């Protein structure tokens, strides 16, 4: 008697716990939440035929893109398609994407992939649909060639995703600091003054001598700017480490170190409160940053003191994304149609005007609204044109799977030098560390 009664009580206890979980779960058709765009519907059909059967696409995005508005438009124009938008933190999105692709299940139909993260998947073409199979080649002309190339694989036979926005880098500068140093402060004048990196260094020395202020508050962006202008970075197209075989990266490093040693750059790290505060204080002269940095500056500084001009000797790119279609998707045609529409020049123009996402489609740069776009914050200059000039100056470069591994150790070396370490030692140690990490991948 005892045993069976006990067993019953025990099982009831265990079952009730498990039942609670079962009752709470299985909610694929649960109610919606606050945003009216996140309609959760059941997946009604699995094949897409030419008769436009109802299709649901899950779409992962990160950041503040305003895509929900565009999606509404698309769904109106294509009533058989429902797009479920899921917004996530950037790191979370990429972590989840990686986990899903690794386990082979759970990836969405369409996902934004940031340009840095794209490198991770270079070897994993089989996890994505090749957009060229669905007509991507037809729209190649819509995009800047370096952006397009980055979305392709090394030999151009596979397209991971269509580009959305980009982050061409320019030189933001404080007009008041330049004036304090007795220099001209209009964008044309500054652009004239600083045409090469030697000029940059000379102006930095002058500003420092006249005002005691540094050229920029952190070394990372200087290194990035010079790195991005190099025709070769860390790897060749066979993914062999070539960073020691050519001088470009070493030059970028040495240049940065030289500025540090002359006390022309500070040691504040990006994204710290001090860094944000510095934007408003006018304690340094320039900020080498991408188009989307505008928003950050506006958030932290007064209007009228910052202006923009192009970087010396070219430009670089920081940030930007691609819309990809993971191989798990059962509706690749519909997904591609959606992706193509989202990245078309008309939509990119809207994203730019409403949310500041800088377009990767040069057609947009000719648009009158784009050309006339002025920003009072930056002294009433035509900011969009400065960025488009930079965008067209970026050189395509092969990055490679191990790109960020090498980049991160070099950045660490730079910040160590900034804290007082020996530059040569740090460089050597960084290369060693990079090789060690790459060997395990």
């Amino acid at each position: 008697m005892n045993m069976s009664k006990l067993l019953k009580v025990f099982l009831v206890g265990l079952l009730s716990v498990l039942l609670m979980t079962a009752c709470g779960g299985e909610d694929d058709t649960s109610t919606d939440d606050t945003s009216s765009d996140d309609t959760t519907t059941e997946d009604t059909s699995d094949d897409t035929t030419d008769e436009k059967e109802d299709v649901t696409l899950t779409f992962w995005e990160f950041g503040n893109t305003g895509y929900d508005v565009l999606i509404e438009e698309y769904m109106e124009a294509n009533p058989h398609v429902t797009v479920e938008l899921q917004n996530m933190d950037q790191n979370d999105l990429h972590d989840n994407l990686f986990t899903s692709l690794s386990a082979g299940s759970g990836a969405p139909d369409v996902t934004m992939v940031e340009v840095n993260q794209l490198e991770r998947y270079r070897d994993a073409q089989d996890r994505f649909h090749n957009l060229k199979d669905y007509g991507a080649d037809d729209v190649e002309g819509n995009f800047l060639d370096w952006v397009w190339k980055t979305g392709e694989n090394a030999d151009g036979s596979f397209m991971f995703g269509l580009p959305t926005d980009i982050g061409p880098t320019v030189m933001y500068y404080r007009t008041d600091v330049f004036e304090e140093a007795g220099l001209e402060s209009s964008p044309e004048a500054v652009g004239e003054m600083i045409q090469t990196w030697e000029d940059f260094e000379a102006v930095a020395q002058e500003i420092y001598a006249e005002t005691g202020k540094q050229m920029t508050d952190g070394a990372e962006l200087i290194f990035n700017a010079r790195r991005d202008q190099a025709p070769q970075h860390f790897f060749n197209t066979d993914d062999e480490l070539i960073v020691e075989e050519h001088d470009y990266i070493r030059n970028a490093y040495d240049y940065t170190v030289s500025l540090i040693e002359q006390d022309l750059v500070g040691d504040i790290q990006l994204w710290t409160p001090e860094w944000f505060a510095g934007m408003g204080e006018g304690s340094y002269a320039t900020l080498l940053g991408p188009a989307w940095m505008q928003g950050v500056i506006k958030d932290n500084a007064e209007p009228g003191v910052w202006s923009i001009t192009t970087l010396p000797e070219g430009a670089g790119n920081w940030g930007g994304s691609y819309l990809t279609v993971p191989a798990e998707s059962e509706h690749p045609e519909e997904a591609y149609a959606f992706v193509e529409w989202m990245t078309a020049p008309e939509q990119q123009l809207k994203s730019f005007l409403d949310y500041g996402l800088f377009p990767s489609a040069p057609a947009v740069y000719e648009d009158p609204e784009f050309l006339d776009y002025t920003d009072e914050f930056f002294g009433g200059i035509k900011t969009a044109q400065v960025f488009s000039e930079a965008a067209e100056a970026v050189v395509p470069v092969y990055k490679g799977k191990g790109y960020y591994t090498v980049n991160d150790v070099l950045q660490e070396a730079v910040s160590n030098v900034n804290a007082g370490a020996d530059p040569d030692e740090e460089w050597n140690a960084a290369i060693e560390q990079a090789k060690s990490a790459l060997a395990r991948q």
Partner: protein
Amino acid sequence: MNNKENHTKNRRIQKAFVYLFLIFGSLLSLFPFYWMFTMATRTNREINSFPPPFTPGADLVNNFKNVLANMDFFGSMANSLFVSTSITVGVLFLCSLAGYAFAKLEFKGKKTLFSVILITMMIPPQLGLIPQYYIMTQLEWINTFQAVIVPGLINAFGIFWMRQYIQDAVPDELIEAAKMDGCSTFRIYWNIVAPTVLPAFATLGIIVFMQAWNDFLWPLTVLREPSMHTLQVALRTLNDARQMDYGMIMSGTFWATVPLIVIFLMFNKLFIQSLSEGAVKS
């Protein structure tokens, strides 16, 4: 007479010292929490200034309005409540049963089995993420609450804790007496052991509830749809790509913590009640 005066003076000094110690500790503990609240009442611009503000600002309501506009705060809170409560109840029940067995019952292999449990605590869990996710995809539990709750019932810490406590706090004589009265093992557990170890329940309960409430990595990985998100996962959607509105984020985080404090106070009450009812002593 002198002795008594000294004695009282001693007590006063001791009292003062203890108070000082506690106040100092409390202030240090409170400070970051207070600052979190301060940030929740300030605009992003104010927070990013250096040095940052130490006093509350005027944007308490404003920030929270932004939170509500950007995430389903109350919906995800309800989800968190459900998940955390299920896990806590489950763990308290299962771990106390197992703890009781290891503490007071005789069976073959007891030592070995217990060592196995201890060893599972020593395995670094981070690499298990992908295989565990894979299991969930095979069970088709992705996007369900059981994907979070059921693995959460595995709690070696809880078993160890209960065993330690029951071993120490429940006298063998009591159990013997109950057995002589003809009680089944389960009845002994239910009527004698459990009431005696209420402080252990209260403590384990609050710890497990909190861990479940604050857990975000695993729920993030398995709960994909926004309607299924727990609070911590939903809070992550407040993060923008590179520009974070810290006023809004801290507001969400702060209000997400308030229920925890309420739960803590509830468990604390249970803890105290169990003390006033008197533990079973020699």
